């Protein structure tokens, strides 16, 4: 089962990378109000149901893929 994890800097956490991207977009003439830079992880997960896949990936996020102090995550299971 294909599962996508989106890891984002938590709301309210300073994201200097996002700020630099926003500044650069402004220089190109794009008037974006804000930019935040996160990370995307595609996983191939062996699980009988999408609920089980989600549960597995949630543990992966908590233990490795995200640092809960500064990052939030979102899990998307393909086809659900």
């Amino acid at each position, binding site marked *: 089962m294909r599962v996508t994890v989106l890891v984002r800097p938590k709301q309210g956490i*300073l994201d*200097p990378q996002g700020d630099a991207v926003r500044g650069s977009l402004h220089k190109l003439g794009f008037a974006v109000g804000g930019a935040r830079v996160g990370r995307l992880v595609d996983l191939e997960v062996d699980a009988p149901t999408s609920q089980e896949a989600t549960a597995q990936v949630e543990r992966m996020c908590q233990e*490795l*893929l995200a640092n809960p*102090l*500064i990052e939030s995550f979102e899990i998307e299971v393909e086809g659900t």
Partner: protein
Amino acid sequence: MSIRPKIAVLRFPGSNDERDAAWALSALGADAQLVWHAEETLPRDTAAVVLPGGFSYGDYLRCGAIARFAPVLDAVRELAAAGGPVLGICNGFQILCEAGLLPGVLRRNRDLEFVCRDVRLRVERSDTAFTARCEPGQELIIPVKHGEGSWYADEELYAELEASGQLMLRYAEDCNGSVGDVAGVCNEARNVFGLMPHPEHAVDPLLGSGDGALLLAALVDAARERTLAAA
């Protein structure tokens, strides 16, 4: 004759300061041994461990996030749980945070710049194995060289750490946007300490400052005491 206590300096793929650390510790009276990350045990009679600077595992995912799974880390946890002193420098600090042995996390520097220069630091307390040769409030000059050294803890955790006196070392000048200008923190038991500055690069006045020797020599003292106590 004073004994040379054994201090293990870990070496991960991508470490690059392990030789400087081992050299400095040896010059300060320790028997420093380089230990490969895949080892499952530390050398016999290891009294302390140093996790050196560098870019372990290419800083993949997050700095230190992969190194925490190295086999040798289990032995380090064991030594730390038994009260043995463990020092993490720069990438070593990042690894100890990711491994949950130290509180907080190191993030990208506020200004996105790689900071590489001597910085002024303030020692907050001297009642630890790492700062016993310093006075509280003493200023040290030690170089930093990092792109992801901005230490972060949320308000609640920060207040907790401040109350328990774990924020041992602060920048005495603006450096990288760390919360509370924190440059180094220790665990509750005060035997695990991590800092972004590199004391191993400041052990000889010829190189600009000898202040790093104060921290490392205190670690050697603690390791020696531990070795004598075990004998």
